[in-house]
């Protein structure tokens, strides 16, 4: 089940246009019309790409007035955030210890 989900995600991103759309959405949530203006593909084609990305669990959509806004699925980003959060906790602990070590200063 999970293996399928991951392999679906890989499959969805194997198409260059779809991958470009995904990367674009990672920068900012957007509506179909915005994406159709930016990419050299028709609006129906953009919609089809978004559907594949959505089915693969890589993007989600929500209603905003009469438009649908697509965004990168937050768990994918949240995973990276969690990783960096944990990394910086360790690094900044080390920084604190180094800054509080006396009396030497690093460039002394």
């Amino acid at each position, binding site marked *: *089940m*999970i293996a399928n*989900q*991951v*392999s679906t*995600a*890989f499959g969805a*991103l*194997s198409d260059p246009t779809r*991958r470009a759309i*995904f*990367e674009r959405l*990672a*920068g900012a*949530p957007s509506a179909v019309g915005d994406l159709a203006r930016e990419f050299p593909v028709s609006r129906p084609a953009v919609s089809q790409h978004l559907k594949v990305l959505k089915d693969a*669990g890589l993007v*989600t959509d*929500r209603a905003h007035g009469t438009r649908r806004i697509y*965004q*990168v699925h*937050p*768990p*994918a*980003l*949240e*995973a*990276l*955030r*969690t*990783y*960096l*959060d944990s*990394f*910086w*906790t*360790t*690094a*900044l602990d*080390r*920084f*604190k*210890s*180094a*800054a*509080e070590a006396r009396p030497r*200063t*690093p*460039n002394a």
Partner: protein
Amino acid sequence: MPDTLPDLAVRKSLTVEAPCAHAFTVFTTGFDSWWPRAHHIGKADLLAAVIEPRAGGRWFEKGIDGSECEWGKVLVYEPPSRVVLSWHLNGEWQYDPDPAHASEVDVRFTPDGPSRTKVEFVHRHIERAVGAEQLRAGVDSEGGWNGLLAMFAAKAKETAA
């Protein structure tokens, strides 16, 4: 789903028992003294990790074999209060030269009396690092899923459970 993207920046706040100028110096010119040794991108073991102390300076590592690898640039250098670095590394600890994929590390130092400093740390725009190279590496690599996509898988499993 929430109506907007969650705040994806990493934020840390800490108090250092040292004067502000000293804390700033240790963070920047003393960067190598505290950076976790295992975290580097060159093939050679890490000799030194360096933040050049000026705006426009390099943020890079030197390997024990003399090789150098870029990590990013110094965007803002305002001793003793602030340093901003561009982070060109993705979640796989690989260098990505594309500015569109660079995240940003912003560190502010505020005196809290003569011998104490408040440090506010933000690593923002990490959504940019999720793009191109990392996904490409994940998609193209033979074994399939590594790095971020492995984490994505773990997350998917967690949310599916």
